[in-house]
């Protein structure tokens, strides 16, 4: 048992090392900056997907409000650094801390709810936040957006090039994946799996389910908020449309496309959902229709997600080689 566990952990770490190398090498194959921008967005979206994979896939708690956490952190950091003139690093930390505190406050009563009721509560929270982003024009700039946010800087050093921002995003994403793997292979991970199989049985065995659920909820909100502050200071412009209900839905789609329980899968899901519209842009008006159709077909023909489809393909290939 112990041994099998180590093998699984080692496999995950190998995967992470490979992924990190791939991320670091990717910019050398990019013909221009446009592709780099998309990669940065992919990385930022993958941060949400990793957190939600833990929350939705492993703890079995649906959230339709993570776009709210994303926006809250982005707006907080933007307001503190631009309007109040605080240092960028400090504003970013403040944005994340505030969002984590709010997620704790929201999580405490919400996580008592089950299934669709929890989805509704988080959804309602997300909508309230997105209405606030739109309506508090003095603070957020309203529907036309918040402009002139200072660029990302680390320890007083401004990241002026996109490639520097990209590397920072890649490192942060890999740290999150590393943390998630460690969580999943720890006592918490085992408790989460027990919780997902049967909440009552887990409770009877002495697993403090309320605490673990809250921990994962706050952790995923923290990932989303880090993504939010990076997003705000990378684009230097934010608008309420980026943090609406549809984005929360997209995040869930990323995780489900990734096969729910697989961290690498949800990253692939995030990249897929982010890149696809860029490819479809060539089709102008039909873009949205195609996106919907591809989403339906993916779910119909790859019920266990992109990663599951890949695994099946891979094992079929291996069998073919062996024979």
């Amino acid at each position, binding site marked *: 048992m112990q041994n099998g566990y180590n093998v699984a952990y080692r496999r995950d770490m190998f995967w992470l090392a490979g992924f990190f190398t791939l991320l670091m090498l990717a910019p050398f194959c990019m013909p221009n900056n446009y592709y780099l921008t998309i990669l940065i967005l992919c990385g930022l979206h993958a941060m949400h997907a990793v957190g939600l994979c833990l929350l939705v896939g492993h703890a079995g708690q649906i959230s339709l409000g993570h776009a709210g956490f994303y926006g809250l952190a982005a707006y907080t950091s933007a307001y503190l650094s631009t309007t109040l003139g605080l240092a960028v690093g400090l504003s970013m930390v403040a944005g994340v801390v505030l969002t984590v505190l709010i997620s704790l406050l929201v999580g405490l009563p919400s996580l008592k*709810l089950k299934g669709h009721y929890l989805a509704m509560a988080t959804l309602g929270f997300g*909508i*309230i936040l997105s209405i606030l982003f739109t309506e508090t024009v003095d603070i957020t700039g309203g529907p036309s957006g918040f402009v002139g946010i200072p660029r990302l800087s680390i320890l007083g050093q401004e990241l002026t090039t996109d490639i520097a921002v990209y590397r920072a995003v890649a490192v942060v994403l890999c740290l999150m994946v590393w943390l998630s793997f460690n969580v999943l292979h720890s006592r918490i991970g085992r408790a989460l799996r027990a919780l997902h199989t049967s909440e009552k049985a887990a409770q009877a065995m002495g697993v403090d389910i309320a605490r673990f659920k809250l921990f994962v909820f706050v952790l995923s909100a923290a990932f989303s908020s880090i993504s939010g502050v990076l997003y705000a200071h990378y684009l230097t412009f934010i608008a309420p449309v980026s943090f609406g209900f549809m984005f929360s*839905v997209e995040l869930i789609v990323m995780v489900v496309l990734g096969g729910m329980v697989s961290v690498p899968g949800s990253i692939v899901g995030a990249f897929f959902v982010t890149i696809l519209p860029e490819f479809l842009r060539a089709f102008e008006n*039909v*873009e949205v229709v195609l996106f919907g159709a591809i989403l339906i077909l993916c779910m119909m023909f790859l019920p266990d997600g992109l990663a599951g489809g890949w695994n099946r393909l891979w094992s079929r290939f291996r069998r073919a080689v062996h024979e």
Partner: protein
Amino acid sequence: MDSSSLLQYLITGLTLGSTYGLTALGFTIIFNTTGVINFAQGEFVMLGGMMSVFLVRVLGVTVPLAVPLAALGTMLTGALVERLAIRPVRGCPSINLVIITIGVSILIRGLAMLFWGKDTHVLEPFSGDQPVMVLGAAIMPQAFWVLAISVILLTGLKLFFSLTTQGKAMLACSFDPKAASLVGIGVQRMVMLSFMISALIGAVGGIILTPITMTSYDKGIMLGLKGFAACILGGLGNPFGAAAGGLILGVLESLGAGFVSSAYKDALAFIVLLILLFVKPSGLFGQKDAKRV
């Protein structure tokens, strides 16, 4: 506050609320037969409105004929959705089906934008726009149409579920699909029927609301959300709760817009909903589910 403006807000709220209630009922009917929240429900509401506008404005069909035609068209769409996207994957985990309905809603919205453009469309009220004075409140005649048609639809559904064999069979499916299929009910056919009925009532809700709020290709998102909220407010799976939840949500929103601020009316409605959920985690009329381990 004076009583006439209170009455005014109340009637506006009830009018809005009855369409939320109809949308919520659509959610409930599909949820009861499949266990899935159909995210395309709001799109059915939008389709009803857009089709009726298209029939009246472009094809020159008269309103009394356009209303049933648009409702039938949407019902057909509902049947197609079930046949093409839901039936082939029966037995999948419900989260997958939910994602498929999200895909369907994006697809329908995209198609509507392609065919009818991004403009907002209007439909003339069914019987003029001269307000009727009731106890000092000015009520648009369309409000009466909305309330009357909603009541007729609700009564019809009630009769359908309690008197006809088909209706009783659907009810049986909602209690226990396996037991229902054991006594010879075609569960798959009932799922198809539930999509058709949901699309139909959603569309009717959309059509009768269009003369009041106008319509556009993206109207379905917010209406769908409100419908889902109404469902949860009343207790998921309870048709009476869904209708009541819709009315409560509509009235809350209208009072919030009237007495507090119209910019925050949606936020107020959702805040009340959240507080209610924290106090009563299974909705107003929902049953506390006791699960056997």
